[in-house]
């Protein structure tokens, strides 16, 4: 069974002797043309696949050398790994690590102290501000009370004035007693209200006032 496009005669054609040696190959041979279920070729019937030949002595020598080499490599690797582990352990638990941790704790303490100082400063400012605000409020209340007292006084004064004025005007009031006199007075002094007044309250000149 052939898969895909069949190529032109493969490299074997060169050995078999081509008709036109000048012609180039159109396409290279494709590997693995046969699938799993294809039977092997007839030319391969008597084929026995053997591993490459090995010289036992050489093999022993080579194996021994490889054994040495690999063991050296293994020890080197273990050595380096051990060193790295030691360093990491010392970093974490040893003196170096402890010093580092101490330094970090010290720095942390300093920073916390700085933060506390800052907080205290802000607290003082806040207290100051609250005191100022309280004082302001007190002063405002005081001023308000004073203003109210003044206002009350003014009111009282005005009321008194009004009362006095009324008392003054009461002297001209017409009562049953002086009714007759008032009537007499009005009759004796006739007044003419027949005059024009402008918006400002001034009397117009041309009207006759008698």
């Amino acid at each position, binding site marked *: 069974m052939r898969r895909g496009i069949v190529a032109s005669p493969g490299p074997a054609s060169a050995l078999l002797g081509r008709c036109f040696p000048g012609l180039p190959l159109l396409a290279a041979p494709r590997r693995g043309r046969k699938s799993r279920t294809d039977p092997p070729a007839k030319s391969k019937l008597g084929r026995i696949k053997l591993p490459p030949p090995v010289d036992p002595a050489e093999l022993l020598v080579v194996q021994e050398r490889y054994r040495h080499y690999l063991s050296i490599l293994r020890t080197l690797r273990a050595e380096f790994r051990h060193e790295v582990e030691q360093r990491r352990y010392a970093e974490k638990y040893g003196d170096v690590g402890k010093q580092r941790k101490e330094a970090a704790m010290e720095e942390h303490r300093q920073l916390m102290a700085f*933060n506390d100082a800052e907080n205290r400063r802000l607290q003082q400012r806040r207290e100051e501000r609250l005191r100022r605000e309280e004082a302001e409020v007190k002063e405002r209340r005081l001023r308000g009370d004073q203003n109210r007292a003044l206002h009350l006084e003014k009111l009282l004064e005005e009321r008194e004035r009004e009362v006095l004025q009324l008392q003054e005007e009461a002297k001209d009031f017409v009562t049953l007693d002086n009714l007759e006199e008032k009537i007499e007075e009005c009759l004796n002094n006739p007044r003419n209200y027949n005059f024009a007044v402008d918006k400002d309250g001034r009397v117009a000149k041309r009207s006759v006032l008698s």
Partner: protein
Amino acid sequence: MPMKGRFPIRRTLQYLNQGDVVFKNSVKVMTVNYNTFGELGEGARKFVFFNIPQIQYKNPWVQIMMFKNMTPSPFIKFYLDSGEQVLVDVEEKTNKEIVQHIKKIIGKSEETLEKEAREKMKLRHPATFGPKKYHLRECMCEIKGQIPCPGKVPLPKEMTGKYKAAMKENAASEAGSV
């Protein structure tokens, strides 16, 4: 399509990456108490609005909680794994000042961050290739300027192995015949 919400720039990666406060490993929880009114807490409000996303982005394993209008004055509290609590008063401070203060008292210093970056770089040797878990790249085709992956873009004919083999055969056969 425009971005939605007030100051949507807070949601961009570039903005989030600009945050430079990385907390120490001992910080586990951060709580921010602030008020929605008052002139003095303006800095705290701005801090919550603008800087908290940056901080959370850089510290994904720190729990950050916000409480509104629970106390008369705003403050920030950090809970460390040793049980210690760090209180930071943030009244009358601008959001920049708050960030600076926090970075100073409880953030990792520049040199620590650099050291950590260097350590991280050491783990990934740039010259080795292999699984992504242990190496930076798996194949040469991932690097800019190199040939693209032949699985995606077929190689030119002249570079394929079978063409080269065919040419070699051809040359050998021609030499043999001559």
